[in-house]
């Protein structure tokens, strides 16, 4: 079977799934984009499916005026924890900054579908284990050097090298090994995977944000040597204060009318840790955009006549992890389940997000968040069950546990809600609140073995949106994931997950996902009480910011009217 035949058959398979009602139109578009089917083909597939247009998701730029060229936009957000390194970044400040002057092969759209960026198209072979990416031609780095296949290969090899400590390695481990990427020609890269993997394009998209494409000559210290292909160029970086960018005059991007992007002359990122201080700066007009608005404390922004708060269907989570390397969580599923049954998820959603977020039931395969996922079993608060489980776990008289979290975002409130809701079952939760810096600190010699967020017995860790459940799962539930706070190791689940990654057939994927979801929920290595709706706030005269909420803030088509 040729690749074209395979793609055609896959398209027919998606149409069939959609017609049978096993897949929504939105999900069809997402899956088509993952398989590298063009927008034109996807449109034809939608037409073949029939039915009506679904509600589109995304920002609130309704009635957008014609773009205005020029101007400098000011963003406000937290400072990167350390000076940003694209290979290892994991925090909001670092990601927002890197996103302005570096690019990925593939970008995410507002529905977590994929859209071409530095790769114009991508196709799998009929086994799904060899993916060929056709690169965009005529792109240059802002130092004048051309963007070619060699840059892609060195960028990917860099994150595959364990010595570099990249979080992307967790995603790519077991999927792509060093040497798996090769240049077919100057503008074609072929990835030969360790196994078939239907979601591989996500791995080299902005959803796996350490895979930013760097120049083949990159030797580290992106702040001193900010070479990228993005719409802006970093001109000044003052640690913990601000970063200044000017437009990249040789940027390859054009808008739909063929106008040169970006529209803006420049942008500035003002670093302010305190959310209320950020909000006040927004309200005073000192800054224009807050890429991620934390709901707690932002209520005043909703009523501000000068601001617009865009609401995005995000998939960000607050992972409550039970560290299974230590007591009392080690080999004690009943105890973990007992805590899960103490939670009143609706009340938590109401208190933290005014009921705007989607509920989660301790599994990543949540159909309300990731359409097409198998239905999960809701977990309502049930103290009788919790007490029984507690007794089964060997703690009939209750127990004392410690929950470690950072004083960041809504984590302190979430921790107090957990504490309050566990108490009636006899679980006394002691809160260990650390500063943001202390929570993510660790010894240089053994960061992953010493940092509290990966080693404390029970933790709350904030995760930004991910485009697919498998991305979340690979990042924190596989035994060799460097960001695993639970240190869960369930061989049956690992084996199934391997199958899931390899399977392209949607019906089979759904069956496997149902098993994965069931095992994850039953074993309860982590609590997932909600998936957060993302907020982004900007002045009303700011338009055209692309990308889902959360950290991805594409300003290439942003502009400001008078």
């Amino acid at each position, binding site marked *: 079977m040729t690749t074209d035949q395979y793609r055609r058959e896959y398209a027919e398979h998606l149409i069939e799934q959609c017609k049978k009602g096993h897949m929504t139109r939105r999900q069809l578009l997402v899956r088509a984009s993952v398989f590298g089917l063009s927008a034109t083909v996807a449109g034809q597939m939608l037409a073949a499916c029939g039915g009506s247009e679904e509600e589109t998701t995304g920002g609130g730029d309704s009635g957008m005026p014609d773009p205005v060229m020029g101007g400098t936009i000011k963003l406000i957000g937290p400072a990167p924890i350390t000076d940003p390194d694209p290979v290892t970044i994991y925090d909001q400040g670092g990601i927002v900054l890197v996103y302005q002057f570096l690019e990925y092969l593939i970008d995410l759209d507002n529905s977590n579908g994929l859209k071409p960026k530095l790769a114009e198209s991508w196709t799998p072979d009929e086994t799904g284990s060899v993916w060929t990416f056709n690169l965009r031609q005529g792109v240059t780095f802002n130092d004048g050097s051309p963007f070619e296949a060699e840059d892609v290969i060195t960028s990917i090899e860099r994150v595959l090298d364990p010595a570099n400590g990249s979080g992307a390695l967790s995603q790519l481990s077991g999927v792509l090994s060093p040497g798996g990427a090769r240049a077919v020609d100057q503008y074609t890269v072929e990835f030969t995977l360790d196994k078939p993997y239907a979601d591989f394009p996500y791995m080299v998209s902005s959803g796996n944000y350490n895979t930013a494409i760097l120049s083949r000559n990159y030797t580290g210290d992106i702040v001193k040597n900010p070479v990228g292909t993005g719409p802006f160029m970093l001109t000044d970086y003052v640690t913990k204060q601000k970063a200044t960018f000017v437009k990249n005059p040789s940027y390859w991007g054009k808008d739909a009318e063929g106008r040169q992007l970006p529209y803006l002359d420049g942008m500035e990122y003002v670093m302010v840790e305190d*959310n*209320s201080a950020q*909000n006040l700066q927004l309200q005073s007009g000192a800054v224009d955009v807050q890429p991620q608005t934390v709901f*707690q*404390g932002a*209520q*005043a922004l909703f009523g501000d006549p000068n601001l617009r708060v865009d609401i995005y269907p995000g998939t960000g989570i607050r992972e409550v992890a039970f560290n299974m390397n230590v007591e009392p969580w080690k080999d004690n599923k009943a105890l973990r389940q007992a805590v899960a049954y103490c939670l*009143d998820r609706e*009340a*938590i959603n*109401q*208190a933290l997000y005014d009921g705007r977020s989607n509920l989660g039931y301790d599994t990543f395969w949540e159909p309300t968040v990731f359409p097409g996922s198998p239905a999960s079993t809701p977990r309502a608060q049930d103290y009788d069950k919790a007490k029984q489980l507690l007794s089964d776990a060997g703690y009939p008289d209750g127990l004392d546990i410690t929950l470690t979290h950072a*004083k960041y975002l809504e984590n*302190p*409130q979430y*921790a*107090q*809600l957990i*504490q*309050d809701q566990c108490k009636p079952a006899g679980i006394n939760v002691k*809160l*260990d*609140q650390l*500063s943001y810096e202390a929570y993510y600190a660790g010894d240089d010699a053994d960061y992953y073995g010493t940092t509290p967020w990966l080693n404390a017995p029970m933790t709350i860790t904030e995760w930004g949106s991910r485009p697919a459940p498998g991305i979340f799962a690979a990042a924190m539930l596989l035994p060799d994931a460097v960001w695993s706070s639970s240190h869960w190791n369930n061989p049956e689940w690992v084996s199934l997950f391997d199958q899931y990654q390899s399977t392209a057939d949607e019906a089979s994927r759904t069956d496997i996902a149902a098993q994965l979801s069931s095992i994850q929920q039953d074993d309860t290595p982590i609590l997932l009480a909600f998936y957060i709706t993302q907020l982004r706030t900007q002045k009303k005269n700011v338009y055209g910011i692309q990308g889902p909420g959360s950290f991805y803030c594409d300003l290439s088509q942003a502009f400001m009217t008078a």
Partner: protein
Amino acid sequence: MDVRSPDLREPDPEAVETLADGEVGHQEPELEADAAAAAEQRRQRRFLFTALLRSPTFMTGLVIVLFWVFMGLFSTAFTQSPTSIDAMATLQEPSAEHWFGTDDLGRDVLARTMAGARTVLYIAPLATVLALLWGSIVGLVSGFYRGITDEIIMRLVDVLLALPIIITSILILSLLGRGMAIIIITIGALFTPPVSRTVRSAVIGEREREYVMAARLRGERSAFVMAREILPNIKEPIIVEGTIRLGYAVFTAATLSFLGFGLAPPSPDWGLTIATQRVFLQIAPWAVLFPAAALASLVVAVNLITDGLGRVFSK
């Protein structure tokens, strides 16, 4: 010469009492003198008590402080639980059900404001007592021995006084971790230098007095002279200094909590509450204003007590 002879005694009644405590083999004139001194002491106490009762400044402060002590101890008996969360009733404005409204987790602000007094009224007085204890020891030693001992101690005190209280507290708490005991010890330690200065000044004024010389002549140990002869005679400045430090301790404890170096959630501690609720100031000002007003009232009350005591002692 009989060093315990009445005509050599310091007229101060407490000094008389102190000397009388240590003597062996009383004689009749001494007994009469002791009785007179005790009567004088009682008279002075009555005068002090009456003067304080008649001092509007002192009484206003005292009533407010006693109100917060009472609230800190017993408020949970007649308010809702300060930590009880109602996720469906967050940031509600003051109403018949919640007189001070609710906070971000639906907790009753009245209950939290009243209970919030508890932590600060543990921390501040205990820290002040520690500061007075350590400061008195340092000040007594320094002022009593003078010379090189005084020089060394006072230069060290100068160095410690130059350290900003809050920043040094943060440094210590960062190193030692948090917890009520550590906060108390930290504040107590940092308030020791100013107390020692005050005590030293008072000791220098007393060390040349006759009763001190008398005690030395009869061969009393230095520690005894400092603790039993001098200390009782400098209690007024120590008390006033203590009330000044108490006000500062209240404020310092609240500041450390506000900065995140004090108690952890869900404590209703005022400083912590102000810090966590200030982000809602625009939409739910009651969640911040009531604990802030409570804190301010306690600091003002302690200062009123200080002023009242100072005026009465100066008489």
